[in-house]
């Protein structure tokens, strides 16, 4: 290889500026030129606004005000600390994110293990199972409103047919609204988790399974000893991402309940959205965003630490 390169070099057309010291591949000194088109929008419209947003949290910025915005120090944060409505919303957000993520993971793991088996029609099943992923979140919300509809909905009708009572108004009931919304969250996020875990399962060498089976290990032992160690890093990664996505979710609940009844499903994103774009309290809403980032960062840190450890453990 090296000798071939040496030999061919003199025959190459002269490209003095870029030729000689180029490393592997085509991306040589022109790398910056290739990177800039994506890097500039990222810096200007993503990193920049993020920093600007953090600064806004320390101001009294409001929408449509003529007076100049002033620095207010940590006033927004101390207000936030006393804002019981926000902390209630935060509690609901954590409850929602943890429950949805856990259920998503368990159900998706089951489905992924099934799809990894040598079953007939598993390709068709896999294709059908990702349908929820393709649907717009607003449509998912609309669809489940039709399922939950107290009069024309199929859920109450099915319960009635099974003799389980007359059903109820799921999305307006104080006790049922959050569980009903969580079911939709699990439904909507399951395909992505399943497909990721399935890819992880298909990366585990089948010989290991067979060797364990020959040694007399049952299904559970094989899962614990062979499947799980190989799957763990991916499971950790997708769970961390699921948690982040769920904690930041907005459209589903906006369409299903818009935070009602009585704030029982008001996720932090809905709260912050109303604060910013209904009441125009940009500074205060930015402070909420900062608190949300802080929580999510903790989970992201766990994700990265686990990722490194998973890599060491094999």
């Amino acid at each position: 290889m090296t000798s071939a390169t040496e030999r061919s070099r003199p025959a190459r057309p002269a490209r003095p500026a870029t030729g000689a010291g180029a490393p592997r591949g085509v991306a040589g000194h022109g790398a910056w030129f290739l990177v800039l088109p994506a890097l500039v929008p990222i810096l200007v419209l993503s990193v920049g606004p993020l920093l600007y947003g953090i600064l806004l949290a320390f101001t009294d910025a409001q929408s449509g005000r003529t007076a100049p915005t002033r620095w207010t120090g940590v006033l927004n944060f101390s207000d936030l600390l006393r804002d019981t409505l926000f902390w209630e919303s935060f509690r609901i957000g954590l409850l929602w994110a943890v429950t949805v993520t856990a259920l998503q993971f368990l159900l998706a793991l089951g489905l992924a293990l099934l799809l990894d088996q040598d079953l007939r029609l598993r390709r068709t099943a896999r294709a059908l199972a990702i349908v929820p992923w393709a649907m717009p979140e607003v449509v998912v919300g609309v669809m489940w409103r039709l399922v939950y509809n107290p009069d024309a909905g199929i859920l109450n009708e099915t319960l009635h047919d099974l003799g389980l009572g007359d059903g109820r108004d799921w999305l307006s009931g104080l006790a049922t609204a959050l569980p009903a919304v969580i079911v939709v969250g699990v439904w909507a996020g399951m395909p992505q988790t399943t497909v990721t875990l399935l890819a992880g399962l298909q990366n585990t060498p089948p010989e290991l399974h067979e060797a364990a089976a020959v040694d007399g290990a049952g299904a559970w032992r094989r899962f614990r000893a062979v499947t799980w160690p190989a799957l763990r890093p991916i499971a950790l990664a997708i769970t961390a991402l699921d948690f982040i996505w769920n904690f930041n979710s907005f459209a589903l609940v906006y369409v299903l309940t818009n935070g009602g009844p009585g704030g029982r499903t008001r996720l932090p994103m809905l709260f912050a959205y109303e604060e910013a774009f209904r009441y125009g309290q940009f500074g205060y809403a930015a402070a909420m965003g900062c608190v949300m980032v802080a929580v999510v960062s903790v989970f992201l840190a766990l994700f990265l630490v686990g990722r490194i450890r998973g890599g060491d453990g094999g």
Partner: protein
Amino acid sequence: MRTRPAARVAQYTALLAYLVFLLLPFLWLLSVAFKPPRELGSLHPTWIPKDPTLANFRQAFDEQPLLHAAFTSLLAASSAAVIAVALATPMAYVMARRRTRLARAASGWVVVSQAFPFVLVIIPLFLVLKKLRLIDSVPGLVTVYVVWSLPFALWMLVGHVRTVPVELEEAAAIDGAGRLRTLVSVTAPLLAPGIVATALFAFVTAWNEFFFALVLLKTPEKQTLPVVLTHFIGAEGAADLGPLAAAAFLATLPSLAVFALIQRRITGGRLAGAVKS
């Protein structure tokens, strides 16, 4: 392999249960979309419409500017997808081929960007776009979509570039092809399917997006399909459920079509590979 028949039956039953959970709500949406108002008002709704009708679709188009909104969505989503992929492909190439500090920082940013709470980004973006007079305009929305889809476009494209063997590029260089020539004649054709898949995925993501469109587009005539759909919701009587379902079903068709097209390529393999390496 050696699975007992009883276990097989249990496996098929479980798989069937999953598919019922995942597909029945969608079938119910279809059922409602084709039911006449009289049936929708009935106290005991049925799965299969007794008297299927297209009236709901007609009414949906009459009541709301659906076609116009669909066109806005199409315009915004396709521009965003094309621009995002055009910007991301060169950078993804560099990230895949060179392990520089920049490439590593970019990979880190791809992960971090997943954790952005949209609210912390949308408020400053809203203020910036307002200064640029891009609020309530499709170009403004496209700008946001491009930036928002860059991380996963990079993520997907880096994976696709890695599947193109670097030896092929080296062979082309040995044969005397310049860099540009190598990229155009060797790398691009092999990378094309991956680029198309990434663009289609970015298209669906933008087509389905709701939050940014809700915040940035205020004039009804400029709103995208998901935002217009939410106008159907609200004080809905039984008679309005049909058109709502019909419109929701139509809004899903493009996404389903694209997913059907690229479904083989939609895997968690990217994430799996990223975690493994």
